[in-house]
């Protein structure tokens, strides 16, 4: 529809997740109207990311070196591993500034309907990490949806013979919400996991 290179830019932008043809066109024309220095900086970052970023050989998190920042940090507690589905889940947990252990990224969740079984995830790598006996607790922080629950169940069964403490983050009501709007599944989980108020 547009002159060669502009159309190529729109086509490439349109391949990004969540960007449709109209959005791609809008971003392309924004880039054309933006200062050339800013565009060059964006382009160089994109190139640098593809060249420098890789996955941590220990936990599977995104890293700029062979091991990620968390795995290299000696102050992190090596006896606790938090298992997550994706590297972006690590960023979410790091925001709470409570967890001082290390992570393990599975690379997804078990979803037989999509053809993803336990062997398609980084479960073998997890078992290798646990084999030296240094880890005492594994937190299964997969998503609180059906696939995440099933993945946690599968892993818990796999870890049981190792005699580790296997835990799962609590599920329940979102802070700031009204009880009357909570769905029965979430509310049921909140009641299951209720705690004693020791005042």
């Amino acid at each position, binding site marked *: 529809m547009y002159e060669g290179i502009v159309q190529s830019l729109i086509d490439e932008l349109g391949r990004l997740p969540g960007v449709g043809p109209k959005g791609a066109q809008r971003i392309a024309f924004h880039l054309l109207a933006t200062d050339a220095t800013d565009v060059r900086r964006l382009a160089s970052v994109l190139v640098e990311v593809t060249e420098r970023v890789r996955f941590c050989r220990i936990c599977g998190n995104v890293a700029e070196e062979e091991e990620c920042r968390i795995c290299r940090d000696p102050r992190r507690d090596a006896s606790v591993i938090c298992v997550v589905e994706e590297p972006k889940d690590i960023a979410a947990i790091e925001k709470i500034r409570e967890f001082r252990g290390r992570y393990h990224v599975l690379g997804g969740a078990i979803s*037989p309907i999509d053809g993803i079984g336990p062997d398609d995830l980084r479960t073998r790598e997890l078992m290798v990490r646990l084999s030296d006996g240094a880890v005492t607790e594994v937190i299964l922080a997969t998503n609180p949806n059906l696939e995440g629950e099933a993945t946690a*169940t599968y892993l818990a069964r796999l870890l049981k013979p190792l005699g580790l403490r296997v835990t799962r983050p609590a599920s329940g009501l979102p802070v700031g919400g009204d009880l009357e709007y909570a769905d029965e599944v979430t509310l049921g989980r909140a009641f299951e996991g209720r705690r004693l108020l020791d005042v």
Partner: protein
Amino acid sequence: MAGPAVRDNDTVSLYRDDGIVLRTQKLGEADRIVTILTRRNGRVRAVGKGVRRTKSRFGARLEPFTHVDLLLYTGRSLDVITQAETVRAYGGPLAVDYPRYTSGTAMLETAERFTPVEKEPIIRQFLLLVGGLRALGERVHDPRLVLDAYLLRTLAVAGYAPALDECAVCGTPDPVNTTGSRSFAVPAGGLTCRSCRPPGAASPAVATIALMRSLLRGDWAQADISQARHQVECSGLVAAYVQWHLEHSIRSLRHVEHV
């Protein structure tokens, strides 16, 4: 003087139906495309807006295995879910039991495959799936038996029931007892007599054939006391039979874990 223009609302088509959530796919930032097998409208694909956000009012209700009562409006390509109430959540007990979860997933995928046309009412498939999920959640029978019973009956509902009481080719009644044949030919459509046996047909044990009959008829007393080796043989034959007649593989079957 003409009053303010009032927009015609007749084109907005709202409808209510209940159904089982078969599958969900991520859409955009926080939405999901939800595939539902409904009671009155057959298989429906609809968008659940914002359901991936933790504060979503009905995100948890639109998880696979949930029987939901829905209010939807007809969109241009996909319908949009405006309200959802849980009728029964079958997913909870299944997610904590891995063999049951994998069997249940195979049931959902099969239900989706057997309803290729969207919005074509197919109430028998819907009722069969509800019954199957209920049986799976009640933990009375082995999940492998529940799955095989579901697959055999869904085939029967779709008109592809395997011939177990007569030769699938010539119609000779009871080929096992009358001709001593134990030939089960998937492409032929079930048991065959000796003279109709095609090359490459399986030769299951007589007890395996009896188990298939029990599962198709719902004779759980007999099915529950069957031996594990006959259950394994039955599962293999049923899986091959379903996939042959569907002309499509069911990916979940590869991941079904047996107790």
